[in-house]
């Protein structure tokens, strides 16, 4: 058991830190978040094609770097720190992972090289308007139609769905479980609507599918229930999102501590007051715990991707990481606003951007209480 980054992982992490500090500074974030697209194409090209981040956990045989979830988590943590506006979470963590979990090798060979190169951006749609983030919340319906398939219905809360090139969509085949399809953006009958969101740094959309016709090759994997593959995808994406939140939690802590060291009231830097210091200490306590949770979960996700034994803990690990990191990111971002005082509440200061991202990510893929209940079930309660 080794519970530290390898030298190579550490290098990936440090180069991400340097790149994002430069490329995803507050000005860049504010530029991108104000657009409907939500990201700057040049930045995506550089981090996907240039840095190779979109190839990270794609096996080498499919044009990827052959790395795993630990590297993904290291990147997401750094992205959280800088609130990167880019379709990394949607394309790499959701879309690519879905293909890795659901597709046949032939399909992977056909689809993944373009994704690895960053020239195709994917995403994943599955849930309806309900509150169930599990495969059971899948809302689209599919039916067999000649040789191929027909999809009908709506898919909600699809991250970057309005800009992705390839939509990986889960649909319910009545009586036979779930099927997962790869649907190109231009497919007839598919319409995509951007939905403005409270957190502007990550874009959501609604997809409407009105009698969408797909060939047999659009089905990812075999014609059998893909609920397990979808669940595995969601768990891995959940762990990646948790890691991002751990980055958010750490960053707002550092921002708030720096601010309170500068801000003077009552004749002292407010960082010298116990009320402020102890709040910062609690933030650090939670940030450290969340980082441990995310790293542990990353190891489990890695095993799950490679088919190792510890992968059996995937559901528990995902829920543990999400519950811990979500709560921490929200607590820390809210505490940071409090430590900033009045200015923390202004549009001008950046802390509200982190606060909004923290809230959005807390809800996405299931809030802490939802994940704790999932753990309670795993514990046989």
């Amino acid at each position, binding site marked *: 058991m080794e519970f530290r980054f390898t030298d190579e992982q550490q290098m990936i992490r440090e180069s991400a830190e340097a790149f994002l500090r430069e490329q995803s500074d507050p000005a860049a974030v504010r530029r991108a978040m*104000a657009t*409907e697209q939500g990201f700057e194409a040049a930045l995506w090209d550089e981090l996907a094609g240039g840095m190779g981040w979109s190839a990270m956990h794609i096996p080498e045989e499919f044009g990827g770097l052959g790395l795993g979830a630990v590297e993904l988590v290291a990147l997401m943590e750094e992205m959280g720190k800088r609130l990167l506006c880019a379709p990394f979470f949607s394309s790499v963590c959701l879309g690519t992972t879905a293909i890795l979990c659901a597709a046949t090798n032939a399909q992977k060979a056909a689809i993944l090289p373009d994704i690895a190169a960053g020239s195709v951006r994917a995403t994943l749609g599955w*849930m309806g*308007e*309900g*509150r169930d983030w599990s495969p059971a919340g899948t809302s689209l319906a599919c039916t067999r139609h000649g040789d191929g398939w027909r999809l009908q219905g709506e898919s*909600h*809360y699809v991250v970057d769905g309005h800009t992705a090139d390839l939509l990986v969509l889960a649909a319910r085949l009545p009586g036979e479980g779930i099927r997962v399809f790869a649907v190109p953006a231009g497919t007839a009958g598919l319409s995509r609507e*951007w*939905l*403005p*969101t*409270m*957190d*502007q740094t990550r874009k*959501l959309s609604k997809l409407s599918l009105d009698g969408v016709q797909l060939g047999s090759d659009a089905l990812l994997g075999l014609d059998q229930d893909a609920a397990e593959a979808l669940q595995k995808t969601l768990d891995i994406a959940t762990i990646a999102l948790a890691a991002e939140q751990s980055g958010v939690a750490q960053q707002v802590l550092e921002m708030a501590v720096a601010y309170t060291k500068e801000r*003077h*009231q*009552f*004749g*002292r830097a407010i960082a010298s*007051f116990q*009320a*402020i210091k102890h709040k910062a200490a609690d933030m650090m306590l939670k940030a450290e715990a969340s980082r441990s949770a995310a790293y542990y979960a990353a190891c489990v996700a890695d095993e799950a991707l490679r088919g190792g034994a510890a992968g059996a803990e995937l559901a528990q690990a995902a829920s543990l990481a999400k519950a811990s990191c979500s709560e921490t990111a929200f607590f820390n971002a*809210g505490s940071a*606003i*409090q430590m900033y*005082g*009045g200015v*923390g*509440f*202004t*549009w*001008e200061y950046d802390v*509200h951007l982190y*606060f*909004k991202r923290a*809230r*959005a990510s807390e*809800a*996405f893929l299931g*809030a802490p*209480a939802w994940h704790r209940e999932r753990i309670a079930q795993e514990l046989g309660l």
Partner: protein
Amino acid sequence: MKLQFSEADEHFRHEIASWLADNLRGEFEPLRFRGGPGDEHMFPEERKHWERRMAAGGWTCIGWPEEFGGRAASIEQQVIFHEEYARAGGPGRMGHIGEGLAGPTIIAFGTDEQKARLLPGIRAGTELWCQGYSEPAAGSDLAAVKTRARLDAATGRWLISGQKVWTSLAHESDWCFVIARTDPDSVGHAGLGFFLVRLRQPGITVRPIEQMTGTSEFNEVFFDEAVCEPGDMLGKPGEGWKIGMALLGFERGVSTLGQQMLFQNELDEIVRIARENGAGKDPDIRQRIADAWIGLRVMRYSAMRMLSGGADGSLAREAMSYKLYWAIWHRNLGKLAMDVLGPEAEIAESAPYGLSRLQSLFLFTRADTIYGGTNQIQRNIIAERALGMPKEPRR
């Protein structure tokens, strides 16, 4: 100790309820349930009209003494007024700073001339007030006021220079009360004056502050030799702190009841959504809704206990915890609203950044624990003034 209102009070309830039913309609219909915290920037002109309609009906400043146009309404009647006003969806009051803060302060500390000149405009809903307390370098540290007031011996005018911040409705108001330093060599609580200043004058610039909601309820107000006319100072130089503290006491008085009724409307909406969208079946949500309901009831009865205390703006020992209590409660309510909405909580009403009422509530409640004294300052006040714990040593 009893819960029932007297027959006379119930008659009063009928009176205000009928008046609201007859008047909060037609042109005023769109104002119902609007203009509350987080929504204060909406319909300002229409709400000014409404303020004057209220005045015409005799429903402004009901707690003031009759000699100043009030009804000398009892605490119970004021409770009833706020209950019915909120039940009817009465809009956020444009005149509440004048009615609840400036007016009572002028009544308590003003000269007869000031009372005669300034109170009628408040009572009539024609002169609106805002407050100039916080400063950029003195957020929660009120005694660190840097705004200066210099007496121009020739004219008898005070000339005010400096900057105030977090002033809500400044761009809609006629008057601002300002705490400023009359003695340039003074520090802390000493050497402050309390000034009543006309806002529409060359020496004053109002600049909206864009908040995290993308809207601008608050303002920065810049004073550059702004004129406070002779006779518009309240009290004497050096009494600013005393008057300001009394005013903060009024702030935590009857107006809290009106605020509670807004809270009740918010909670009701959240409960309604929880019933409709299935969130109400979630055990965690159930617990939190029940907890919010408990908290609001507690606030109501805490306010009632508090109001049975001093009427001079001084706070009973028990009342000191009220601001902290509601601020935390409201912040939790904002988060609860989001969690009840579920995934839908994230979706805004319109591009580019038009938030829903509950989204605004959620974001605005983050300010509740900051303005009017942060939670940290409130805890200091409770510990030092109510519990007699020692002040921290100063460096």
